[in-house]
Every structure is written in C-alpha cells, then in structure tokens.
C-alpha cells in the first residue's frame, strides 16, 4: 500500500479578467510563493512539481518546461498532465499520486491560465473533432443549456432555481478577496440579466479569468511533521467516459453519478448530504448547481429544486456549497478545478478567512471538463 497524503499548503493569485501586471510565469510564481508561505516552506523543501494548463489558450507548448522559473523547478523533477477543463483536478490528483506512491514526499501541484491572452471560445472550439464537430460546436454553453431545459421539463425546476444558485455563489464571492467577480446580486438581477442561451443568462455563467493556484501535497509522515492540521486526501476518482460531444446522455450527468458513487464507496460515505460539511464544486454555470445535486446523490432525481429553495446549500445551510464563490465568480480554466481542492483544503485547515465554515471535517471537490467529464476528490480533517 502507498502513503496516505495530506495537503499542507495552498496559494492562489488575485484573479481577474486580465492581469496586465503578470505574465503567465509571474502569475505562477505568485501562486507558488503564496503556497510556500502558507505551508511555511521554502522551495528547497519541494521534492517534485506537477503542472498543467490548456495548451492552445496561451499557445505554449511544453508548459512544464516553459514554467520552470515561476515554479522554482530548475534541477527538480517536473511533470505535466493536462485534460482540458478538468486539468486543475488532474494536476491535483497527480500531485496526490506523486506523494502516495512513496517516490516523493513533498509535491507542489500548480494550475494556471491566462484566458485574457486568446479568444477563449475559439480555443475551446479546437477541442471538438476538427473534421466532424468543430464547425457546429457552440462551446460549453450549448450542452449545459440543453440539459437544464430537459431537467426543467422533467422535474418542474425553474429559471428561478438556478438564479438562486447564481446569487448564492456570487454573494459568497464577496467574502473571498481572491475572487475575480465580486458583486452583490439578487435573484431578480440574475433573472433580468441578458439571455445567453435559453435558459442560461449572463449572471448564471462563469467568466474567463487570469489566475493560478498552487497546492502542496505531502506524505503522511512529512505532513504530520510540517503542518499542524493537514487536509487529508481520502480518495480521488475520475470518469472520462465520452469521446464525442454527441455521445452525452442528457437526462443525467452520468460521469458525475459514476465518479461520486465510486468515490463515496471508497471513502465510506453513505449519506453525502449529511456527511460532508462543505463542498467546492466545479459548476460552470448555475443551472448545474441545480441539476447536478441529484447526480451527487444528495437527493432523488428531481429533488434538487426543493433543497435549493430551502437554502440547504447556503453558507448557513446543511451543506454549504462554494463558499469561495465558485466557478461563476472565478474561472482561470487550468487552475479552476485545483482552486476547488485548495479552497476545500483551507476549509478543513481553518484558513478560509471570511468564508470559513465552522468545524469542517469532510469536504467534497469536483472538476468538470471535456465532453461532460468528471474528476472528484474527497478531503478530510482525520486520516482516511
């Protein structure tokens, strides 16, 4: 068996639509420096480094090589993983496996993106099959709009339900100094914002951001030595089942259902709504904050609107979701899913500042990307 692994430090940049003051490498160094500060380590304590992003967003080939100065990786083992929108969680999982393998003790995992450097929609279009799917592919919003339309029809969910989610996450972001978009909004503001693609409106959707996040993973022995309260990794699960966009099964979010079912089993979780104390979820759009609650087994299919209307997922609710403000407040794509892991770790470590939930013992984080792919990680205050 491998090592148990804890997160001992997290750093992130102040995210924004455009960080003119920081090149990609400078953004990375900002996140890495802050993660080292957070863990009270220096770069010489780091045994190995993992990085990822979306290549065509900044047109950097071999980003692991290019980022060396920002990573502090010269004359160290450095590794690149990348899987599109789930890159951040893929980087996190890779950091975890590095430390769990016993080959490395202290591992720095870094995600970043400078979405301001290109036309994000054009870059996303290149993820469709160039011959058969690129031209009619309308980007991420199309499948999300479609699945929520069908969900509303099937279960009586409303546009107001997703607006409640949007207002919740956006107002949570007011407590997060790093968030890109920090603006108090009401449910009415969301409902009245311009329609992007029915039923998704402007304030339902994620922005594109410049930003970076760094998370430090350590083997059990090192984590105990270096950190008074590590966030222990309980499990990491990935499901990337689809090959073409047309393969999606609309009615549910099957990769999320399968990944979460597998992860709960591994982590011994039978009642996720009660057992988790906080969740940082990759919800690219507020409608996902409704429908995907079913797929995470928080309720029966169709049960999510009822929970949302009761305030179940608010800061003071039964299971607070996205105290950070989530993806609709901050979205530097290659870092986005790693920010979920970092924020969840801070909640467990008690370092989440103004967005801290009291007494977090177990936290759930997810990544989303590709053609509805899911990555998922469970963290805990106690050893697994």
């Amino acid at each position, binding site marked *: *068996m*491998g*090592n148990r692994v804890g997160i001992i430090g997290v750093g992130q940049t102040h995210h924004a639509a455009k960080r003119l003051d920081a*090149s990609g490498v400078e953004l990375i160094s900002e996140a890495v420096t802050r993660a080292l500060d957070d863990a009270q380590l220096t770069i010489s304590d780091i045994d190995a480094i993992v990085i*990822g992003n*979306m*290549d*065509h967003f*900044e*047109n*950097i*080939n*071999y980003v*692991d*090589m*290019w*980022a*060396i*100065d920002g990573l502090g*990786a*010269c*004359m*160290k*083992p*450095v*590794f*690149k*993983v*990348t*899987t*599109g929108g789930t890159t951040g969680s*893929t980087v996190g*999982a*890779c950091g*975890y*496996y*590095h430390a*769990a*393998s*016993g*080959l490395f003790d202290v591992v720095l995992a870094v995600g970043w993106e400078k979405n301001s450097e290109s036309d994000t929609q054009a*870059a*996303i279009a*290149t*993820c469709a*099959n*160039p011959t058969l799917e690129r031209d009619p592919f309308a980007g991420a919003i199309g499948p999300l709009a479609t699945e929520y339309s069908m969900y509303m029809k099937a279960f009586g969910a409303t546009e107001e339900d997703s607006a409640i989610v949007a207002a919740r996450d956006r107002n949570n972001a007011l407590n997060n100094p790093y968030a890109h978009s920090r603006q108090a909004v009401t449910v009415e503001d969301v409902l009245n914002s311009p329609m992007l693609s029915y039923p998704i409106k402007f304030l339902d959707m994620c922005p594109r951001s410049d930003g970076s996040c760094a998370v430090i993973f350590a083997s059990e022995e090192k984590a105990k030595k270096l950190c008074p309260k590590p966030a222990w990794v309980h499990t*990491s*699960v*990935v*499901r*990337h*089942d*689809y*090959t073409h966009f047309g393969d999606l099964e609309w009615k549910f979010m099957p990769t999320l259902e*399968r990944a979460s079912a597998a992860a709960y089993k591994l982590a011994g979780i039978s009642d996720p709504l009660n057992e988790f104390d906080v969740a940082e979820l990759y919800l690219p759009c507020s409608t996902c904050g409704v429908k995907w609650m079913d797929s995470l087994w928080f309720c029966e299919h169709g049960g999510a609107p009822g929970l949302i209307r009761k305030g179940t997922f608010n800061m003071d609710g039964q299971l607070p979701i996205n105290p950070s403000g989530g993806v609709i407040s901050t979205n530097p794509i290659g870092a986005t899913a790693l920010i979920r892991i970092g924020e969840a770790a801070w909640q467990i470590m008690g370092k989440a500042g103004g967005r801290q939930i009291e007494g977090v013992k177990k936290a759930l984080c997810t990544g989303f*990307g*590709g*053609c509805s792919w899911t990555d998922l990680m469970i963290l805990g205050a106690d050893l697994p």
Partner: protein
Amino acid sequence: MEKVAIIGVGQTKYERNKPETFAELVFEATSKALEDAGISKDDVDNVVSVSSDFWDGRTISSMAISDASNAYGKDITTVEGDGTFGALYGMMRILSGSFGVTLVCAHHKGTESNIKGITNCAFDPLVERKLGIDAISSAALQARRYMNRYGVSEEQLALVSVKNHGNAMRNPLALLPMDITVADVMGSRKVADPLKLLDCSPVTDGACTLVLAAERPAKKLCTNKKRVWLRGVGHCSDAYRLGDRDLSDTRALKDAARRAYAMAGINDPRADVDLAEVYDAFSYMELMWLEGLGFCGDGEAGEQMERGIFNFDGELPVNPSGGRLSAHPVQVAGLQAMAECVLQLRGEAGDRQLNTPETALVHGINGMCGQSHCVWILGK
C-alpha cells in the same frame, strides 16, 4: 516498496502517413498489448494516455482516444510529454495502492503536422520565439557547443547514425532501416550546421501501449516469462532558456540517472546494464546522453563509439531497435524504447535479439535540447 511489472506491450508499425486516426492507432496498440499480456479489458482498472494538444492539433488531445484506450468506466488521465513520463505516472498510480493494472498508451502522428511551427511554440513567446528558433536549429546550437567543448568531430556524430540505421535493418517495425556509411551521413544535405539530414530523426506516426501491473496481479495474470520488472526510475529538469544552460552540460540527466540507479541498486552502470535505449532525436544526443548516464566520462562517448563499444555486437549495445533516428514518433518514443527493452529482456526480439540481457536502461527526454530527462531501469 511494492514491485511493479510490465506484463504486456503492443506497438503499431512506425511509418509515415499512416491512414488510421489517432483512435485507430491506439486501438491497434492497446488490443495487441492486452493480447500480449493475455488479459481482458476488465482486468485493467485505469488508463494513462500520452499525447499532445500541439502535435495532434486538438485541445484535449486525449478526448479522441477515450473509447479506443479502454477507458470507459475507468479512471483515466493524460500525460503530455514523452512516453517514459506516462509510464512513470502509471507506476505511481499503482504504487499509491489505488490501482492494480494500468494501461499506458501513447500515440503520435508527426506527418500530420509541421514540426518546426510546433516546436517553435516550445520557446517563450515573449523572447526567443520571435526569432523563429525551433527544435532543429536549437539542437544545432547544442551540438556545436558540445563538439566545441569536448573536441568531438562530425564524423563521430555520423557513426551514431550509421549504427542506428544499421540496427533498424533487423527491426521490422522501424521506419528507416538503412545500410549507410559515415561518408553518406557527411554528404547528406546540410540542415543547420553542424547537423546534416542524416543526423536528424524522421517525422513518424505510430502508437504503443504498455500494460503495467502491481506484483500480485502480475503474478496472478501472467507467466514469469512475460513479466519485466520496473526496478528504478528518476526524472529531473534543467533551466528553460537556452542561454540559462550550458548546453553541453548534462546535469539534469545525471540527476535523473542518479535517482534511477539508487532505486535499482546500480553502482556501476557500465557493468550492470546490458543494453540501453537512449533518446537519439539527433545523432549528437546519443553521445551526450551516454555520458550523462555515466556509461563513460564527459566527452568520451565519441571515441568509444569509434571503438564499437555501443554497437549491436559491442560491450554495451545502444539502441538495438534502431533508435529514434530510425523511427521518431515524438510522444510515443519513450514507450517504444521501453517496449524494445521488454522484448529484449523476454528474449522475444527476433532477429535483433541480444544474448540473454538481464538489465536494460531506457532514457526519455522532454522539452528542447533535452531540458528534462526520465531514466528507467528494467530487469528480469
């Protein structure tokens, strides 16, 4: 520490302009690897794919091969780099205790893209990229620096090309088997001085899949004859800008090799290693890397090449497959080299079988001018 074995290998033939899609190549290699291991799709619990968005011309290059790689319903991830790094991640995932049997599959179609434009994008857009530098011209700078520092001759470089293309004559999967002389290499078209056409590896298409297994499933699923153990591994990266490095220096490779040797318990690589597959993207690289790996002193590889030490019938055969000079599917290259060593260690290398090797070394690189290295020790 838990032991991990390679229990199956599958490769396509390495060619130019292969008609198949990325997925069709991956399915061929992966089906062959499963068949070689004698296991079913359900014995596999996770997949590591290796590909590049730049070379494939597609963001999320792994999306194209999700079904073809046997990933449905399984944990999958993607390494962008040489195949040796993909195998390393496969091993880490097994050592973590989370997985038992890992598929590592890589695909590459060099003939579908323009190597110069794509490798130009490996350079910083804020500095060197505007000058038009690419993999070939930067390698030429490194070759000159290395030759100048150690007094290595162009003829010594040419010997590497003669040897490896000759070795490829015995490998039915290689793209460029050739019976050539030093004079042929010296007389080939000048590309970027001191490199000539026959100092450079060809653009190539192909795919390769390895099956890795933890000790228990390895012993349960297949016979002793099929198992080759991963005994040691190490990786390390040097600085990014060409001007930050002394390009003739192999310190990152030395560090990667030190890690791999320590893990495998190798004290004297020259004596303990029976064959090596070394990343010869260009002829000069084989000489530099042989030195960095500690098979000889710095600056000595050229002279030892002249003495035939690294020939097929020499003291330490290097690149018996024909190396990257005879087939260079960039993302696949490391797995291709690992597959060659597995076949050699099993005694299944056909016409190019060496005499009962016990220990093999595989070397992969990442980035320009061998910025980063991954070194493997494989054993019976």
